[in-house]
């Protein structure tokens, strides 16, 4: 094979990484290069430096070290039986690319993943070497997210945590059955074992920082994972409870959901459909309900259709929950607790905080609420304000058409 140019390699190895949903560059400890050495900073909040026409943000240089892989997972474009062009970066090429892009303010840092070549340890070692070179030789202070290989040796994974802001291990699929069928060489026992080890390493790191200020930061932005949606038979209820269990057991920062897209040279066992983007969106919303609105996983599940286990696609899950449990509404915005206010569909965390602050000084009227929220029309049926008492919800049969968004273009093309 002829030598590939750097841009050609980048095209192949970024293309291969585009199916990974995670992109966040937040949660890192604050750093800067003010002391006149090195380059880069992190402010705690990531910056999205560009957006692609698929609506996703670009904050990190997200690439694979190589797209060759000894595994044959059906949902993955890089599986060993796939016909895609293969390429491989050297450690220095990735380091230079990262620095070149960073200096031009194109990116916040690097998100490095890789197909498994040779052995898991060998692959992990290469990944770690990139991070080590960036941090030690170039004193790079931007964001680094490393994907760890579940079967790699413990000390390699530890090193990854020392150089990276965030580490992640993909659970791949929401059901064990799906994993067994579509990724027969991976095992949930090994994946979860690696996540458990990572959790305790992160906790040990935090503990050490408490005792000794000089102790190194270990993956300060925590660990995350990703699962593919729509490649196996998992229902939304299955996914919600799986994600909740992962948050609980491994103290994850984020669970990413990636709608399975038809991939070039797709394995024959996969559904050839447009990716279920709306479903993915609803799952992210259900994730928010748990993380920010204090819903219990079983409450989110209750918003799903009991027969099919699927969340409705035409309305968001918080609204679906409210319509199902109408006895909680309308809720008095001047009296309800924070926890209950968070359950009002259409009110976000910011609006709830603003309501709590404002109502210490005045009785809130509908107008006041209108100034604090995006759309008072949508929340009106769910609240009582000083000058507003709606008809009891249960009596309003035509509520859903009033609240539903106009169909978006996405659905016109959905198959």
């Amino acid at each position: 094979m002829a030598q590939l140019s750097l841009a050609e390699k980048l095209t192949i190895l970024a293309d291969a990484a585009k199916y990974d949903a995670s992109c966040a560059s937040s949660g890192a400890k604050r750093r800067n290069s003010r002391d006149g050495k090195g380059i880069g900073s992190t402010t705690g909040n990531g910056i999205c430096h560009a957006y692609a026409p698929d609506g996703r943000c670009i904050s990190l240089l997200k690439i694979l070290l190589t797209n060759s892989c000894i595994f044959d997972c059906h949902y993955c474009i890089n599986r060993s039986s796939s016909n895609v062009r293969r390429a491989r970066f050297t450690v220095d090429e990735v380091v230079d690319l990262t620095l070149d892009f960073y200096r031009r303010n194109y990116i916040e840092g690097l998100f490095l993943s890789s197909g498994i070549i040779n052995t898991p340890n060998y692959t992990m070692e290469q990944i770690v070497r990139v991070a080590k070179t960036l941090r030690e030789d170039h004193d790079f202070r931007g964001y680094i997210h490393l994907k760890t290989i579940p079967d790699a040796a413990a000390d390699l994974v530890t090193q990854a945590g020392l150089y990276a802001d965030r580490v992640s291990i993909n659970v791949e699929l929401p059901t064990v059955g799906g994993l067994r069928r579509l990724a027969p060489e991976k095992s949930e026992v090994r994946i979860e074992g690696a996540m458990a080890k990572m959790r305790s390493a992160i906790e040990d790191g935090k503990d050490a920082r408490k005792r000794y200020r000089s102790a190194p930061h270990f993956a300060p932005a925590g660990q995350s994972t990703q699962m593919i949606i729509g490649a196996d038979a998992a229902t939304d209820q299955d996914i919600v409870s799986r994600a909740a269990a992962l948050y609980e057991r491994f103290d994850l920062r984020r669970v990413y959901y990636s709608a399975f897209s038809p991939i070039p040279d797709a394995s024959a066992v996969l559904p050839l459909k447009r990716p279920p983007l709306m479903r993915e969106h609803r799952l992210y919303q259900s994730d928010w309900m748990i993380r920010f609105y204090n819903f219990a996983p079983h409450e989110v599940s209750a918003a799903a259709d009991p027969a099919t286990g699927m969340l409705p696609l035409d309305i968001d899950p918080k609204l679906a929950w409210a319509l199902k449990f109408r006895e909680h509404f309308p809720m008095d915005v001047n009296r309800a607790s924070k926890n209950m206010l968070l359950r009002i569909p259409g009110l976000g965390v910011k609006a709830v905080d603003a309501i709590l602050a404002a109502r210490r000084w005045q009785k809130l009227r509908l107008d006041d609420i209108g100034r604090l929220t995006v759309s008072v029309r949508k929340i009106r049926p769910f609240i009582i304000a000083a000058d507003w008492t709606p008809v009891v919800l249960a009596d309003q049969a035509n509520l859903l058409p009033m609240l539903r968004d106009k169909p978006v273009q996405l659905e016109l093309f959905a198959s």
Partner: protein
Amino acid sequence: MRAICLDAEDDFEGWRVAARSLAAIRIPAHEILWQVGGQPADLFGTVASPATATAPMAVPRDFVSLARQVILNRDPERFSLLYALLLRILDEPHSLQNRADRQLRRIEALHRSVRRDIHKMRAFVRFREVGEGKARRFVAWFEPEHHIVRANAAFFVERFTTMRWSILSPLGSIHWDGETLAEGPPAQRNQAMGDDPVEVVWKAYYSAIFNPARLMPNAMLKEMPKKYWKNMPETALIPGMIAGARERERGMLADARALPVKGYGAATIEGLREEARSCRRCPLWRPATQTVFGEGPHDARIMIIGEQPGDQEDQAGKAFVGPAGQVFDRALLAAGIDRASVYVTNAVKHFKFEPRGKRRIHARPNVGEIDACRWWVDQERAIVRPKLVIAMGATAARALTGRTMSVSSARGRPLILEDGTAAWITVHPSYLLRLPSEAEADEAFSQYVADLRGAVAKLEAA
């Protein structure tokens, strides 16, 4: 009327000093004219005396940080709005907490706009490398909406301390030489032009990381409005990427369909069967005993699809073992088809029934149930890749085509499926069991056998 001259559009300190002394003697907001630079424009205005030392004024810290950023907004009323708010919170400090307040909302809107602009500058500034060695510098051109360039300098200094850089803008420019920050006059776009070979590599990255199967241009525009595009190298690619997306996606699908199956044999149907054991895609799993999955060689040339398992199939976990199964076996024999060479499956994999006393009476699956189960049928077909599919009954026909059709009108001629496979529709064997007279049953049976034989003959002839 008093006129106050501030040094610059973002002169927070100037505003602060003046506002303090004016507020100390409670000059109302409408009596003050705020202006930037030069001589007072208002003929009747009198320039306020330079700030005299006033008694310390206690304002909430939140107000100072709010004002510091709101001053950066382009709105000419910002000085006056902030001053009015200052007067108010001197008497009612809590009004800063009342976010439902109209006056505060207006100021917060200005604040939000500034914050967003600051954030977008951090995101969308694009440096170009110029010069080499000691002369190496990075230059960027940015068009901010508000007077944020100076306020944003610290961010770039902290991030790019060891680089020498300049950010030029129509509202002023900043320069960092590695040690000190210098400010310069407004600049022109062409001062930041130049070729940077890394831009080509960056553009290659930008187009490769985009997934055409997920086109959502509105989501992109919401975060990256067009006004920023002209100063970002990668955005020139967007129209082409959007225009080509459908085509690329179609290509992805077509390629995938055209490819022969490589190397997934037995393991995969077994995996599918295993996964289907815990299928919850429709509610039929609840009352049923177990999932009844398809059976047969994984490379069978013929796939036959029935309706759904019956009472005996549900208990045995095997397809076509009950009374209809016996008719089916007889018909295959008569048609000269070896059952062992055929992959046999059902459109719906769980037994649907209505309990009647101790008996479970078969009930017809509805369209929702059939469509939910297509998930499995499609994948069985994708793995086995039969040359011929025979659908028995309307349920099976629906599972195959996604459309409702009547057996009587569809039988007797081939149906070409989306992937090019030939499919034939015939009756379901259980239909033969329900016919009232023996004569009718015999007639229907031979017609059924003829259908099977005819389909296979066409396959042989092809």
